């Protein structure tokens, strides 16, 4: 059927839906729903990790293969360093830039290596905002509890307390660098309400929060003359022979050569994993989100946490084809947009946590109340025109210019017509285990941002990731910089890799997978 015909049901039922209030699910209902429909509970997609510190623990097959995959490094690689630095930051997204700036400010020498251009990352795409508890009705305590509830009580309390308490001061740091958060008429920071939060606490820069933060941080990294290696991907860490990290091997993607870096401390800020396309899901993530940091840290002997849980963002675009997987901002639901099935019904409180909303969309589609596309996809409607009805014409253009533009390119006017959405692979809830200074169990190896785990439990709350990056990027940068003042460079060895390869052979791990994979293999083979 013609898409406009199918959309009519959304227009027709709008007035009725506006009179409805849908309660959030009770904890028991939530659990049942999630266990039945959330991709995290699809057993056939999981298998145990064969060896290493997390041996026997279950994770998705794509990640297990990555963790057990072989390094591209030959055992006899010449380890003469091309660079020596106090702090090596790997990854040029939000966490990496924050870490580099704070370490640099402490007087350490910093080298920032990143796989793409500086700032080409997941951070640049964050539209929804950053959570900071600043209003009088709100407090760090409330923020803590909301996050815990969202994370199914599985969050590391110490990490979480630090994050919510340092939120306001990192917001100030960003303002002092020139980040333009939206304001109220009285000059205070404007806050919006995010899914799963009891109080409005999202700071935003229209729907370009991540882009604005990233532009400013990138500019500052360049102003501070932090030494930068773009298009240089880390492929292996180096060990000092006594279990501590002493540097990394990069691959220069322009000439394919290995580049050895001797570093007193290494901060992995390599971000997420969406481009592994777990369980065949499309993803909202950037091109380089291939979980490289997890693979490298694991080989080095770092412990991973909660790597069996991923966030599937409820609203990934399904139509048109060009936008598949791309994120449709949660802001639409925060401001009252309804989710509507093929029968014109709402089926979930749109502001429930992401795992609940995603599970309920999957339920609607599996039970035959989805809308199909001919290319074999399925989804439900997100009633965007409702916002114009409720808040006046022009609301979408004013509050969501990026999204309006995103669809306008394909001649779709979201102010007039609803859009079709389905969950998209969005965020890696777990990651490398860290302490409150962002250090892993491997000495001198720090992990910050999405690559780290523990803080968000089994489901990250909207807006908490940007905060995580700024708080733990800072802590990693400061701790690494201070530490590097009182120590000298360690030996550079591949001892951990030798050990890893022996184990891999023992467990019959297939070595046809090279890890890290750096990029998804999209180029069509003959």
């Amino acid at each position: 059927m013609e898409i406009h015909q199918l959309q009519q049901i959304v227009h027709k039922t709008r007035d009725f839906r506006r009179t409805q209030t849908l309660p959030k699910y009770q904890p028991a209902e939530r659990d049942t729903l999630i266990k039945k429909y959330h991709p995290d509970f699809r057993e056939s997609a999981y298998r145990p990790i064969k060896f290493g510190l997390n041996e026997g623990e279950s994770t998705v097959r794509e990640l297990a293969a990555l963790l057990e995959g072989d390094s591209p490094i030959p055992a006899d690689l010449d380890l003469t360093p091309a660079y020596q630095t106090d702090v090596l930051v790997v990854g040029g997204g939000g966490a990496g830039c924050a870490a580099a700036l704070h370490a640099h400010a402490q007087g350490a020498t910093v080298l920032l290596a990143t796989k793409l251009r500086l700032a080409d990352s997941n951070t640049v795409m964050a539209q929804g905002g950053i959570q900071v508890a600043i209003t009088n009705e709100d407090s760090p305590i409330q923020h803590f509890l909301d996050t815990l509830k969202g994370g199914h009580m599985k969050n590391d309390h110490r990490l979480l307390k630090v994050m919510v308490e340092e939120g306001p001061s990192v917001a100030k740091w960003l303002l002092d660098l020139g980040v333009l958060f939206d304001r109220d008429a009285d000059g205070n920071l404007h806050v919006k309400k995010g899914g799963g939060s009891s109080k409005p606490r999202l700071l935003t820069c229209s729907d370009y929060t991540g882009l604005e933060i990233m532009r400013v941080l990138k500019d500052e990294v360049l102003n501070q003359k932090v030494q930068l290696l773009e298009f240089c991907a880390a492929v292996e860490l180096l060990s000092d022979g006594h279990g501590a990290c002493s540097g990394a091997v990069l691959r220069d993607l322009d000439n394919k050569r290995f580049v050895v870096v001797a570093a007193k401390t290494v901060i992995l800020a390599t971000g997420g994993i969406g481009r592994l396309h777990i369980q065949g899901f499309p993803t909202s993530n950037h091109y380089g989100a291939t979980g490289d940091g997890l693979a490298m840290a694991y080989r080095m002997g770092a412990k991973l946490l909660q790597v069996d849980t991923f966030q599937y963002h409820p609203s990934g675009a399904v139509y048109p084809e060009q936008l598949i997987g791309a994120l449709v901002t949660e802001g639409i639901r925060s401001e009252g947009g309804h989710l509507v099935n093929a029968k014109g019904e709402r089926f979930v409180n749109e502001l429930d946590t992401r795992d609940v909303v995603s599970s309920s969309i999957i339920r609607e589609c599996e039970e035959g109340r989805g809308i199909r596309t001919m290319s074999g996809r399925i989804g439900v409607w997100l009633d965007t025109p409702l916002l114009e009805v409720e808040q006046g014409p022009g609301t979408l253009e004013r509050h969501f210019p990026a999204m309006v533009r995103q669809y306008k390119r394909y001649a779709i006017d979201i102010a007039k017509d609803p859009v079709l959405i389905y969950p998209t692979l969005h965020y890696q809830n777990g990651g490398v285990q860290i302490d409150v200074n962002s250090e892993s169990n491997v000495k001198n190896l720090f992990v910050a941002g999405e690559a780290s785990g523990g803080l968000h439990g089994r489901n990250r709350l909207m807006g908490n990731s940007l905060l995580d990056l700024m708080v733990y990027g800072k802590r990693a940068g400061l701790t690494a910089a201070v530490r590097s003042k009182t120590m000298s460079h360690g030996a550079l060895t591949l001892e951990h890799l030798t050990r890893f390869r022996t184990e891999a052979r023992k467990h019959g791990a297939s070595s046809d997978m090279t890890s890290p994979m750096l990029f998804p293999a999209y180029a069509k083979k003959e």
Partner: protein
Amino acid sequence: MATQDINTQSVIDQEEVLHPKMVTVEIAGKTYQVPEGITVIKALWYTGQEVIRGAGCLGGFCGACATYYRTKDDPKVRTCLACQTAVQDGMSFSMVPPFPARKAVYNMAELQDPKQDLFNLYPEAPLCRNCNACTEACPQTIDVREGVWRAVFGDFKTVSEMFMDCVMCGLCAPVCIADIAPSLVALYASRAQGVHFTEKPERLYQRIKEIEEGRYKTEWDRLLKMNEQQLKEACAELK
């Protein structure tokens, strides 16, 4: 995705699926057949090319995929973001290599008179010759020329609003006959607006002070002693 009986009532027609069509495009001078309607970057992948320089967020936010293109029989060369633009028959395109524009180096917090300092940092900015090439080059349809003038006249606030959409693709720089890199000028003006000309948010400062003074200490002590059941109850009470 779920397998279920296809409810033909709610299947969206897609012309491209009903009648798949290949179109001819020219990529950096070579001719290829690719499916109609895929994005420019997917067309590159489709023809077997690895893209590293030229791919970033894949979501229209980072500007890594800046591309020049021309449509059939039209002499006009246009710009686009390759991850956001669909190919059409007869299109020719090439990705744009990085351009060595000069970025001024400054310590934002220490600037005394940022509106005046603009002329030391970017002395070329006031030499804009109004050719409008930058505006025409911008894939985000920002009125770039206007932005440069606003910056020169010290209207940093408007500049910051106009350039909130800027994805740093850099396409406005190589076309400038006055050697201005407009997006960098705008970024400077926007940051200066934030650092020097925007109100201090009192409520935020208040909160920072409260935390430093230990205002929440007793509550934390109580909370961190709770067992899982008590914490669950505390969470359930959240309104």
